[in-house]
């Protein structure tokens, strides 16, 4: 890989990590969620900084081209992430339903109590 391209890619990755840290600081991102993204950034930097690392590993694993390994890995990770998100979504959905139900029942009870109190005071 030409040195200029390497430097540009490292710079982009650094910016990415900066954005990440900012998001964590602003509390837009939970720490437990952000571990994955920080690790991904570090791996990217390492892969870019050490010349021929990706080539070496992909050759050892038997990939025809290094890019094949990179794409393969990326797709696997993406699938894993989407799957995880689907599970999270289902969990949140369930909690949400329970909250709506309980809140609506509570509202009804509060209204009933208020009405009873009003009636008592009226008499």
């Amino acid at each position, binding site marked *: 890989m030409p040195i200029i391209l390497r430097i540009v890619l490292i710079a982009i990755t650094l910016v990415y990590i900066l954005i990440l840290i900012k998001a964590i600081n602003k509390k837009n991102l939970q720490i437990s969620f952000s571990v994955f993204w920080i690790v991904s950034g570090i791996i990217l930097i390492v892969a870019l900084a050490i010349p021929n690392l990706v080539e070496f590993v992909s050759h050892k694993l038997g990939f025809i081209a290094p890019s094949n390994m990179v794409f393969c890995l990326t797709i696997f990770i993406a699938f894993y992430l989407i799957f995880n998100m689907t599970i999270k979504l289902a969990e949140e959905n369930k909690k949400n*339903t329970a909250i*709506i*139900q*309980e*809140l*609506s*029942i509570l*509202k*009804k009870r509060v209204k009933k109590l208020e009405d009873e109190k009003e009636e008592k005071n009226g008499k």
Partner: protein
Amino acid sequence: MKTLLIIPAYNEEENILRVCKEIDKKRPDIDYVVINDGSKDKTLEILEKNNINHINLIHNLGIGGAVQTGYKYAYENNYDIAIQYDGDGQHDVSYVEKIIEPVRKGEANMCIGTRYLDKSSSEFQSTFMRRLGKNIISFIIRICCHKKITDPTSGFRAVDKEIIELFAKKYPTDYPEPESTVDVLKRKYKVVEVPVSMREREGGKSSINIFKSIDYMIKVSLAILIDSIKKV
């Protein structure tokens, strides 16, 4: 025995008042609660104006979530029997007695009002497609649970205290009727069916069309298969 009718209602401004008045007239001894599932029309106004016992869901949850709210209400208020009852006027309140009888006598934990058991008693036999769909679902339940349920999608059913508690804690939201029936069967509760007749909708529009029914069939079959291999 304390008995509660759970009436889920979504955009039923044309029907809900008539349904409630009919219950008041024919069965004044039975309590009912209308669950307004985030209706966009005047359903809530009608409920409030006429002082009908209701719970207003702050967001639309769909039929499963709405009905479960009713079961939670029944559980909290110590009802012995809960009956699901449609808010669109399809169900006839005079059949309520028939449905709660097996549950009250302790002969069954759950009693489903079935449209297809007795041909002559029902003026509403619905279309060929619907019957076909019902037969397929019924067939799958028979394979999975070794029990024949003629009308697994019927929304007219009575359950006892144990099942009220079960449903209050866990109720499927995707395809509530067949899925919850499978759940109940898997827990070895006793389920019986009694023939009832249902009317065509008197007002408003049914939310089902052919593509939706095919979609429903496929997903419901899958859901039942998955439910039946799940551990209880």
